[in-house]
């Protein structure tokens, strides 16, 4: 063990059986959670990108007398309503010429069209950082202004964005939770392991070993056990993650073009075994010093 002499049992005791497996399990779970959080973040930023920009509102032409004026009034109302929504940067009603230009591929460029009561379009520019609930805006709009409707596709995207924001938030909470539980488990496993070795600690103490001599050995041991377990957990996590990623890519057919981990993710996951081992080492050290302090 680092070429240093050790007076500790090398195998077969409860610590050396438990600690590595526990650390392996914890590192495995933490790796899963971390890469899950990164993947969610990735997906979300993609979707976010898709939804930035503008939303289109259509207002159907009113019928009856003074149809043109009534339609104008509807457009005004819709513009007012949308302008009042926080997070909306600009609202611009398209004039008839622009609407016609947009419809040209559909209806052809004939003069006849010019006299038709066409639907009007309103361009809405949305602050990409604001969390506008477009579904709710669409609802209000259709109630307040007859014939006005928000572009359906964008409403869906907005819902997706909100969902992915939720998922990102949940992922962070879950990662935090698993991190906490991991640390607690490593600490607990190490402490329990030390309790089993109380007798060895006492004999070494009575023989005249310095506290540091004893604590160092246990700390080295816990580090090695923790690192071994952590590397094993990592070794299990890598193929599991690849398999999941591969399966996800195959199944969803292009919706999440690639949920490959960013570099930061690899670094964090690669550090997990070291973190776990370090935690085990520190715990062992403190536990042994604590036990020694209670001896005369």
């Amino acid at each position, binding site marked *: 063990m680092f070429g240093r*002499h050790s*007076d*500790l*049992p*090398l195998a*077969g*005791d409860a610590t050396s059986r438990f600690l590595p497996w526990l650390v392996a399990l914890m590192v495995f779970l933490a790796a899963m959670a971390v890469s899950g959080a990164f993947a969610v973040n990735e997906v979300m930023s993609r979707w976010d990108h898709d939804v930035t920009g503008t939303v289109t509102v259509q207002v159907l032409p009113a019928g009856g007398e003074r149809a043109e004026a009534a339609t104008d009034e509807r457009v005004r109302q819709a513009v007012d309503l949308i302008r009042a929504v926080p997070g909306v940067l600009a609202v611009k009603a398209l004039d008839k010429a622009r609407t016609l230009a947009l419809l040209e591929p559909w209806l052809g460029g004939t003069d006849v069209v010019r006299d038709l009561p066409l639907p009007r379009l309103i361009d809405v520019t949305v602050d990409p950082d604001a969390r506008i609930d477009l579904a709710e805006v669409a609802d209000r709009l259709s109630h307040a202004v007859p014939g006005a409707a928000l572009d359906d596709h964008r409403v869906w995207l907005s819902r997706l964005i909100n969902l992915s924001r939720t998922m990102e938030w949940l992922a962070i909470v879950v990662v935090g939770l698993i991190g906490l539980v991991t640390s607690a488990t490593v600490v607990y496993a190490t402490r329990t392991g030390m309790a089993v070795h109380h*007798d*060895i600690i*006492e*004999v*070494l*103490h*009575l*023989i*005249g*070993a*310095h506290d540091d*001599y004893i604590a160092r050995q246990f700390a080295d041991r816990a580090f090695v056990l923790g690192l071994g377990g952590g590397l094993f957990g990592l070794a299990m996590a890598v193929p599991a993650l690849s398999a999941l990623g591969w399966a996800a890519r195959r199944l969803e057919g292009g919706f999440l073009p690639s949920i490959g981990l960013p570099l930061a993710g690899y670094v964090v996951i690669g550090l997990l075994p070291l973190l776990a081992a370090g935690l085990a080492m520190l715990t062992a050290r403190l536990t042994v010093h604590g036990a020694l302090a209670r001896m*005369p």
Partner: protein
Amino acid sequence: MRHRPRGENIIRFDSVGLRYGLGPEVLRDVTFALPSGSFHFLTGPSGAGKSSLLRLMYLGLRPTRGRVVLFDRDIASTRRYELPALRRRIGVVFQEFRLLDHLTALDNVALPLRVRGVRESEIRKHVPELLSWVGLADQLGAKPSTLSGGQKQRVAIARAVIGRPDLLLADEPTGNVDDHIAMRLMYLFEELNKLGTTIVVATHNESLVSRFAHNPRLHLEHGQVTRVN
């Protein structure tokens, strides 16, 4: 240390009392002193407190009251980091041996040397020699769990004496060995004693005590130590 003039006290108890938790007092007002280089037997009925008295001497326990002076140091006022140096001057044969189960006989005996940072080459030389002397030349690599009762006891004794301690405390060191080996071990103790080690042997073995009757005897009963001889 080795040249401490005989006669000076290596250990002194001043009205020492001891109780475990809320139990009765095991030791009451124990006062005595052991001159450096002396060889004492410690006798007394089972449960009298012999092991407890030794535990106080090897600093495995603090007295409930009273004063323990070891190597001219008042233990109560000695700093924690100075205690390992004192402990290294004491060799202990525990009544339950307390060998480390995962280490071989050789590594168990080498423990006090390793703790002191003695070089491996020294260890490889001295430890097998001592183990041969106590009749365990064949068992250097054996784990305690494969040793017989008497073999374990001899490993425990070897571990206590390997460091040539200034003070040797042996708790029932011959309870599991035959008379022949017991005599051999006693001669080993006398040999050490001649080299300057102060020795206390707690024992029930009356025939042993009477065979080495030239050594003084402390008798512990009802929480009190009295000198016989």
